[in-house]
């Protein structure tokens, strides 16, 4: 069976999603255990695949028994393996953390909710593990459709925000499809490794250049890169808390992975960095994105919207890191995928806990919350320290690599933007800490001290695990970089 892990990592969640959809009509209690089983199997397969790549090198799997380019092939190397583990782990932890809010918000639609949840994760895992460009598009659409539905179920402005996300997401996916069409027109193949082998003869052709631009534009829309980020703040701010802690840490990071994959594997570094002068423009665009997103975050009055703008700034880090084009920069970008997924999960789970208890997340309602919910706020503090970039949390190390890469490449604008963003994050988060810690709580009890009203244990324990993970990832950064990320970079990068 272990030869078939590349297939099992997708097939088991897929079959479980169908099973959950059916049991939602028959016996609703079984939906959650089936989802847990599916995510556990995915996590196990992801870790096993990464270990296999470390010991044996690339893992290739031919679906349907046909070898590429006539069939679809899965190709798992270091870059793939790392992101697979990240996606599976986030999905697994999040399942436990959101169980109570799901039972609260969608009591009769448990079946469809967990089916959409598992399908979303299947879509993301499929995007990461595939080696075929068109297969990536189909899975992109699965992840997108489930995301639209999960985000559209909030109250108030959620359907409108999700509809805007539908429009922009469809433009992004259609541009990606058009880019793949141009590549097919020029090479006649859909397999990523095959295209990479056929492209060097036609680097000078306008078709290849246009394919690159169109693909990148589509991916920038999907990952909410400034100035194409307009869908993200509204869509994330008004969504139900049950879905946002799954979607926010994962969507943009997987799109950044796709961008890295296309820039480094399909269009090799020779094309992306040397023959093309766009790398400098992209780094400047990333610097502007970071600065603008941080400034926009300052003017927000609610926790979730502020966190949404912080996500946009983090996307700027990763895009800038890739297009710096040197070893430190790309290492920083890949390391930031891991770290940012963990940090975003931590802060969104903490915000979800706040919403669960307080029912509102604007700053005025956060008075004295440190005493009422000490554990959730402690996790938020650790998440905030990581986003700011304080050692020994993991956020510091990825920022360090990005700054080193910026200095190596001479892009001091990017370095300045990174430092500016850290300072703005300090202001953002210390505002919350000041309101939560120093201002007295709304109610005054007769004993003079506020009782501790934390969320139930099953929401608290995963949050504590993720917060601890932030520090552990920080300590193990050296191992991760030297044993895994170093081999994920292709040859030929300075």
């Amino acid at each position, binding site marked *: 069976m272990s030869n078939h892990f590349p*297939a099992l990592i997708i097939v088991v969640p897929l079959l479980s999603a169908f099973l959950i*959809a059916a049991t939602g009509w028959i016996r609703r209690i079984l939906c959650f255990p089936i989802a847990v089983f599916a995510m556990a199997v995915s996590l196990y397969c992801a870790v096993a695949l990464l270990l296999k790549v470390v010991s044996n090198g690339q893992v290739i799997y031919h679906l349907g028994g046909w070898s590429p380019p006539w069939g679809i092939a899965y190709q798992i190397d270091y870059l793939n393996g790392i992101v697979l583990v990240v996606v599976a782990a986030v999905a697994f932890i999040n399942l436990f953390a959101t169980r109570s809010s799901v039972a609260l918000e969608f009591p009769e639609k448990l079946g469809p909710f967990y089916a959409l949840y598992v*399908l979303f994760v299947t879509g993301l895992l499929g995007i990461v593990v595939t080696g075929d460009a068109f297969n990536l598009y189909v899975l992109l659409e699965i992840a997108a459709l489930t995301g639209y539905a999960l985000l559209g179920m909030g109250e108030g402005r959620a359907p409108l925000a999700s509809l805007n996300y539908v429009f922009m997401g469809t433009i992004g996916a259609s541009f990606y499809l058009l880019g793949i069409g141009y590549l097919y027109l020029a090479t006649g193949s859909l397999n990523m490794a095959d295209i990479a082998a056929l492209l060097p003869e036609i680097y000078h052709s306008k078709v290849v250049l246009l394919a690159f631009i169109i693909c990148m534009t589509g991916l920038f829309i999907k990952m909410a890169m400034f100035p194409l980020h307009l869908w993200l703040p509204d869509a994330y701010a008004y969504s139900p808390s049950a879905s946002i802690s799954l979607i926010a840490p994962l969507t943009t990071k997987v799109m950044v992975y796709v961008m890295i994959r296309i820039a480094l594997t399909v269009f090799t570094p020779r094309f992306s960095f040397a023959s093309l002068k766009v790398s400098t423009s992209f780094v400047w665009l990333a610097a502007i994105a970071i600065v603008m997103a941080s400034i926009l975050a300052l003017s927000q009055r609610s926790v979730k919207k502020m966190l949404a703008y912080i996500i946009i700034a983090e996307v700027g880090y990763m895009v800038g890191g890739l297009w710096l084009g040197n070893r430190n920069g790309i290492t920083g970008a890949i390391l930031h995928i891991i770290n940012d997924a963990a940090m975003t999960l931590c802060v969104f789970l903490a915000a979800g806990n706040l919403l669960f208890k307080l029912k509102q997340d604007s700053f005025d309602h956060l008075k004295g919350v440190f005493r009422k919910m000490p554990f959730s706020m402690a996790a938020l503090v650790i998440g905030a320290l990581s986003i700011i970039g304080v050692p020994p949390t993991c956020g510091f190390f990825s920022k360090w690599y990005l700054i080193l890469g910026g200095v190596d490449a001479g892009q001091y604008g990017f370095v300045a933007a990174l430092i500016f963003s850290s300072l703005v994050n300090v202001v953002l988060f210390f505002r919350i800490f000041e309101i939560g810690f120093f201002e007295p709580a709304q109610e005054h009890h007769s004993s003079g001290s506020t009782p501790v009203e934390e969320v139930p244990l099953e929401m608290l324990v995963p949050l504590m695990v993720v917060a601890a993970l932030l520090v552990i990832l920080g300590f193990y950064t050296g191992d991760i970089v030297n044993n895994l990320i170093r081999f994920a970079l292709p040859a030929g990068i300075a």
Partner: protein
Amino acid sequence: MNKTIGFITVVLCGAMLLLGTADFPHWGDPQSPASRHVSPYYIEKSIPETSVPNIVTAVLADYRGYDTMFETTVIFTAGIACFFLLRIRRKEPIIRYYRHVPTGITLRIEKGAKLPEDSKVFDRIDTLYAPHDLINKTTARLIIPFILIFALYVIAHGHHSPGGGFQGGVILGAAIILFAISYDLRSANRKMSERAAALLSTTGVFIYAGTGALCLLLASNFLDYSALALILGVDPVTARSHGILIVEIGVGLTVMAVMVWIYYNLSSRGQHDEGL
């Protein structure tokens, strides 16, 4: 202001794409890279390897069958998403309206009393007036069986003529939607309830993924139909042809059920009362 920005963006984008057509291969060129590299293999080897003359079906369900499985999942996801977003269960109203079919008189019954659901003489309606379409109903009643047979033919004959699971499934769904439009949503609900549609859609896509998993359990790669030769007792090439037929049936089931389910949810805005 917004219109000018949008117009300029669109014109710039269009101009960039138009200039890019300079390096395109000529229209209909048999020596273009797309016609030389991968597709000749499909055209020449389709009958020897899968014994299916319709090359598009062979590529869709066998060579790139994995993509088609996810395509079926996309349709299934759309069905679940529409249900998840829209469905609300109203409490039964206190006042109900019925129409007496022979005379056309509308009855209004209060205090929650009701007439039997499938009575031939009384139709349940939701507003004070609903038109009675005798011509629509009779014509639809006569045509629908033939549409259903044609749809089954399209699914089954997908190996030899244009057709296949998706096309046949859509025609099947269209037949049931025609019934729902010409009669009303409640009678369609009696023939195919929402629960039946949901379970059918799950079954269809389960057949597809299940066939692939069966090949996996028979020690071959996922969706490698030649492994089915052990169960079906034929040579691997014919086993591929049979495997393609099985998955096409699964696809047809899912597409039909999801089309009907989406129609139920969209036309009645989630309330499953009267529909269009």
